[in-house]
């Protein structure tokens, strides 16, 4: 839904700008984090509707950040989608096994990206 809040976790400036511009143009509000720790804090305080998380982050990696989100009952039920440049089959399986609700391959196809985000937001239990 428009007005939903999305937390984007991404350490690359240009990538973040792309996600920001596209998502805001689509009508969503954005929370931005550049590290896993930041993401966990923001998620806990703001309870966004969706988290888009880059796997390769500077401090704790995406999988561990996910673990912490799932461990905290405030954030456990928020859907978390992995953004990953590693689109190999074994990696995909690894992310899904780790507990991500889905993944989006980088580089993103902008049109597909928007569609996918809408789908995950729709699936989210209100």
């Amino acid at each position, binding site marked *: 839904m428009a007005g939903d809040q999305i937390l984007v976790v991404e350490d690359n400036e240009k990538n973040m700008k792309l996600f920001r511009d596209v998502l805001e143009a689509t009508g969503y509000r954005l929370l931005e984090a550049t590290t896993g720790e930041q993401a966990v804090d923001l998620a806990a305080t703001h309870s966004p509707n969706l988290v888009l998380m880059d796997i390769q982050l500077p401090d704790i990696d995406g999988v561990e950040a996910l673990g912490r989100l799932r461990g905290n009952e405030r954030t456990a039920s928020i859907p978390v989608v992995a953004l990953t440049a590693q689109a190999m089959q074994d990696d995909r399986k690894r992310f899904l096994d780790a507990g991500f609700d889905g993944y989006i391959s980088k*580089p993103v196809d902008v049109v597909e990206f928007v569609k996918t985000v809408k789908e995950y937001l729709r699936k989210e239990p209100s």
Partner: protein
Amino acid sequence: MINVRAAPARAAAFVKWRRLFGRADNPLVHGIARLPAKVRTKLLVSFLGIAVLLLLIALLGLRVLGQSNSRSESLKALEERAAGYQNLYTESTTFRDLLAYCAGGADVGKFLNGGRPAPGSTRDCLRSIDRTVGTALAGLGTATRLGFEPAADEAAIFGQIKGDYRALNGLVARITASSRPSLALHARAEVFADDLKIAAATLANRTQNKTDALVAQNRRAYSGSRNLFLGVGIGAIGLALLLGFVLSWSLIGPIQRIGGRLAAIASGDFSGHVDVPNRDELGDLGKNVNRMNDELRRLYRELEATSRHKSEFLANMSHELRTPLNAIIGFSQVLREKMFGEINQKQQEYLDDILSSGNHLLSLINDVLDLSKVEAGQVELEVATFSLREALERGIVMVRERATQNGVQLALESDPNVDLVEGDERRIRQVIFNLLSNAVKFTPAGGRVDVRYQQLNGELRIFVADTGPGIAPEDHERIFDEFHQTDEGAQQHEGTGLGLALSKRLVELHGGHIWVDSELGKGSTFVFTMPMGSA
């Protein structure tokens, strides 16, 4: 009362005793192992030692045999003497008795009375039994002629006997010759006869004693020899066994331990060292095994490290190379979608160019990374049984749009009997897509691409045939090289030139082959094989 304090001491002693008979810790075994001599030398020396022991036993046996032989000979000699003296005694007794008989008859009384000699007087007696006396005397004489030399202590007595005999001989002759009975002569003859008889008895007894003593001595000597022989024999056997045991364990022990270590190394365990204290070739062998172990461990670790570095590198590269493309492709798309305002024709055109270049670059990166992974041995196939027909159908679906755009007909001929194959489904789909997209790309409008498959000699063959320009025979192998593109391909500025190279690697990873049947102007049929599924 049980001495409790002694119990542990006894236990310790028992353990020590056991260790002595154990193999590895045995100090003797250790001692032999530590000898700085070649194995060949040790073996030679041991066998020589055993040969010497055998020789010793043989010599001892011979000596014992010789001693026994000489003893039985001296016994025989003694018995001969005993027999001789006994004979002498017997004869002298006979003679003496005869003499006594002649003298001790009723005539003795008549004689002593001074009466006239009655018939059967001494002289007559001697005469009448003259022959008997004579024979007895002769017998005595013969007996004095022993068949042997009397021993030193016997010689004196024997001399005496001979003297007595001579005297008797003389006396009896005088008695026989005289016409009157001679009591005095007779008495003297009796004295000599007694003397001789006693002397003979003495000799016989003495010799008998000597014989008895020798027999007893023999018996003792035999026991002694037998015990000595047995003792030496058992000792030699024991020594030989000990030598064999100790030597073999000093050789076999290390061999077994080395064998164990090598088996461990073969299964990837480099953690231990083998302990071979030998100062011979086996010791060298042990040292070398340990060096090999360490070297292998080092190489293994290096290999593992290198492999880890490679996969880390590839993962990083994958990420690093794709990151800028996010911005290039992403922002171009955003503009193209007019999310931030209208764009004119030229801007649209340029954006399309940027996008297609970006996507091309992305394909190149994907292919290069894939190929690098395969080359680096970093690709592990996820082998499973899957449906070939489905994979082919999906491939066709993916190129159908492009084919329709190009005016190329697509067809798949399925075989209902054959379907399941074993392999990495994703990778095989990659190969199928590569072959199909090439086929569609290189087939001009109005052409067709046919896909079919069949089972042949236990493997599956998949055919992708197009009606394109064909490939010259000299290029049939080169097209599978990296970055090779035929002239047509280069003209179209598409593709990475890596597709076939990657397909070839992937097919070969599955144990299959890939090749092309083609002639210029007659289209191309790409064929690859796969092992049958275990359905």
